């Protein structure tokens, strides 16, 4: 370094040699930095790929479900012994008996109570419901005989998907040797098939893995987020506008600002406890309801929306405000006609990101009872419900292979929603991006 300093007066030194001497060092630093960046990005990507790979490889089989073709005789003696097509009677008939009869017809050689029970165990208990639906929709069926694809039990499904080790000892498998034999026969006869799993999207939770779906959780999430959005967006925007444009800058507004920033950092479970104490215990709102979940998530999302909203408002250049005031607009007109429309894309982006966070939130909802086992798909804001992340949490606890699959499938659905929401935020930002 000292070599290039030839003159005691800095202004007399040759800038060219000085700069040239330092160039290799600067370039090396730049290269090093680029490498650090590259390594960091690759590491991050690797983790993402690992996570997605794991979830997708585990979850995608859940989108397919095994069905068994069973010859069903719609025996009038069982369905409608009186023969008067009374809907009440059709409703309460013993359709499971029809399924059992069908199974017996496929394997007439099977005898004995235990053996028969193992045979009936190949199909899901959902089969009876399926037959009931068909008959109720079309009473003509009574007396006819039809080949019907019935939902296989979870164990058969798992076997077909190759997730049961056949070489294991019989006692260590959930499916017995004789059952495996029948499944193989059925498969050879082409009476076993994998179909797209519509149940996953059309039904609520169930103890039987093959009948469990995420519809209930999806609707729960929908109602909860609707409440969250309807509450937090208008309140958040109004607060941001007031604080940014109208509030006098004094100690009180400073205090409010600090508190809002703090709220954004409060762990979400605290909001759950608050919701439990205030909404449920004090106001007596129903437990496990999307209404309360939405209220709690609104508390959590509000600070995010307020902070994003204020940032969007400050990013509107002062020249636009001056222009509006200059022609005689009142403050409210200035805000309403110019500032707010320009800030809106930013506010929406912030809100969507806040909503995506709310969609993925589970801890505060555990506190208010949205963690119950609920079979019925919620139909209103006060029906007991759960949400997707909590459903994932519930299923992840269950040992059955079919639930492991469904856990990953539910995660995939949740991730898909997140990606859509974040993508929407990016599109909004890009589309309405303005340069002044």
């Amino acid at each position, binding site marked *: 370094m000292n070599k290039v300093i030839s003159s005691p007066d800095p202004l007399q030194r040759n800038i060219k040699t000085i700069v040239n001497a330092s160039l290799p060092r600067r370039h090396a630093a730049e290269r090093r930095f680029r490498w650090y960046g590259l390594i960091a990005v690759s590491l991050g990507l690797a983790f993402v790929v690992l996570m997605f790979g794991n979830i997708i490889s585990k979850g995608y089989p859940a989108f397919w479900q095994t069905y068994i073709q069973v010859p069903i005789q719609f025996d009038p003696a069982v369905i409608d012994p009186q023969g008067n097509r009374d809907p009440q009677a059709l409703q309460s008939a013993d359709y499971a008996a029809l399924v059992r009869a069908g199974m017996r017809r496929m394997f007439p050689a099977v005898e004995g109570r235990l053996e028969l029970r193992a045979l009936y165990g190949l199909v899901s208990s959902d089969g009876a419901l399926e037959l009931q639906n068909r008959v109720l929709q079309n009473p003509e069926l009574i007396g006819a005989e039809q080949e019907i694809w019935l939902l296989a039990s979870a164990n058969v499904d798992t076997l077909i998907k190759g997730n049961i080790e056949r070489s294991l000892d019989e006692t260590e498998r959930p499916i017995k040797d004789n059952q495996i034999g029948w499944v193989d026969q059925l498969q050879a006869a082409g009476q076993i098939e994998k179909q797209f799993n519509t149940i996953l999207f059309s039904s609520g939770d169930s103890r039987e893995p093959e009948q469990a779906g995420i519809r209930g959780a999806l609707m729960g999430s929908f109602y909860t987020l609707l409440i969250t959005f309807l509450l937090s967006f208008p309140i958040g925007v109004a607060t941001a506008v007031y604080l940014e444009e109208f509030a006098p800058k004094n100690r009180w507004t400073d205090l409010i600002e600090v508190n809002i920033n703090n709220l954004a950092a409060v762990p979400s479970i605290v909001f759950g406890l608050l919701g439990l104490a205030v909404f449920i215990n004090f106001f007596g709102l129903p437990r496990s309801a999307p209404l309360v979940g939405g209220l709690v998530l609104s508390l959590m999302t509000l600070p995010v929306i307020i902070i994003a909203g204020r940032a969007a408002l400050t990013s509107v250049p002062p020249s636009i405000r*001056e*222009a509006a*005031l200059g022609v*005689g607009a009142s403050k409210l007109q200035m805000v309403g006609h110019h500032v707010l429309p320009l800030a809106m894309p930013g506010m929406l982006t912030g809100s969507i990101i806040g909503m995506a966070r709310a969609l993925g939130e589970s801890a505060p909802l555990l506190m208010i009872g949205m963690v119950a086992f609920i079979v019925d798909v919620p139909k209103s804001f006060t029906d007991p419900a759960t949400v997707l992340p909590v459903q994932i949490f519930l299923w992840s606890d269950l040992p059955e292979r079919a639930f492991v699959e469904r856990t990953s499938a539910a995660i995939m659905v949740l991730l898909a929603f997140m990606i859509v929401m974040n993508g929407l935020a990016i599109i909004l930002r890009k589309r309405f991006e303005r340069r002044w």
Partner: protein
Amino acid sequence: MSTTIIEAKANLDNALNAEGRQIPLSSVQITDYDHRQTVGKITVDNPKMICRDVNVYYTGKQALKHVSIDIGANEVIAFIGPSGCGKSTFLRCLNRMNDTIPFCQVIGEIKLDQDDIYDKSIDVVQLRARVGMVFQKPNPFPKSIYENVAYGPRIHGMVDGKAEMDELVRASLERAGLLKEVENRLSEPGTSLSGGQQQRLCIARAIAVNPEVILMDEPCSALDPIATAKIEELIDELRENYTIVIVTHSMQQAARVSQRTAYFHLGDLIEIGETDQIFTNPKHKLTEDYITGRFG
């Protein structure tokens, strides 16, 4: 001078309290610095605005000192002076744009015709409709050219119906010398115009509400010579109908467009007079230094 200081401080405290701001008395330091006496005749025969003893403080820092000046009807008056001398500050007093700056306090008297514009009975909305403003950087709304011009008349409810509005928009653009260039693209965004066109659009926007006074803060500083020439020409035409106050850094511009010129220096109004006289025969040493380029 001492009574004025005490008065000023009391005024400031009252004003601040009235605004609801909680400032302890001691935190606002008002110091009334020595100020220089203005050279030249501050009054005119038919004043549009009368300013007397105007002081401006930014958080206690004095930016304008006892400025007294008349602005004549239908004249173009130019404010010149070195950077930071308070030209913009004074200009923004004239339509109370300073109200938007927190902790900016204006003390003194400014009258538009007979009305004290800082009086409580005067609403800034009304004032700013009467005293329009064109800013240093062209700042059209990110809306269509038409909307830019129509905005002012619309919020004030100046016109009835679409036909009248169309008429007004075209007339304003015509007056601002922009109509020919944008006639066929009124629905395009105002921001799609060139810098000079944007500035004329801003002038059209200002005159669309038919103000009595137009304030221009360095309207040509972001423009090339040709666009500047167009705007200067325009200012000359606008004088017929409006009173124009223009801040400029270009002495040639002041000489070309204005009838009277005021020279500011560190918050003082140093000299005011006919533009010809100021540029050919300045009476104050500071003015002379500035226009001969020895200062600033």
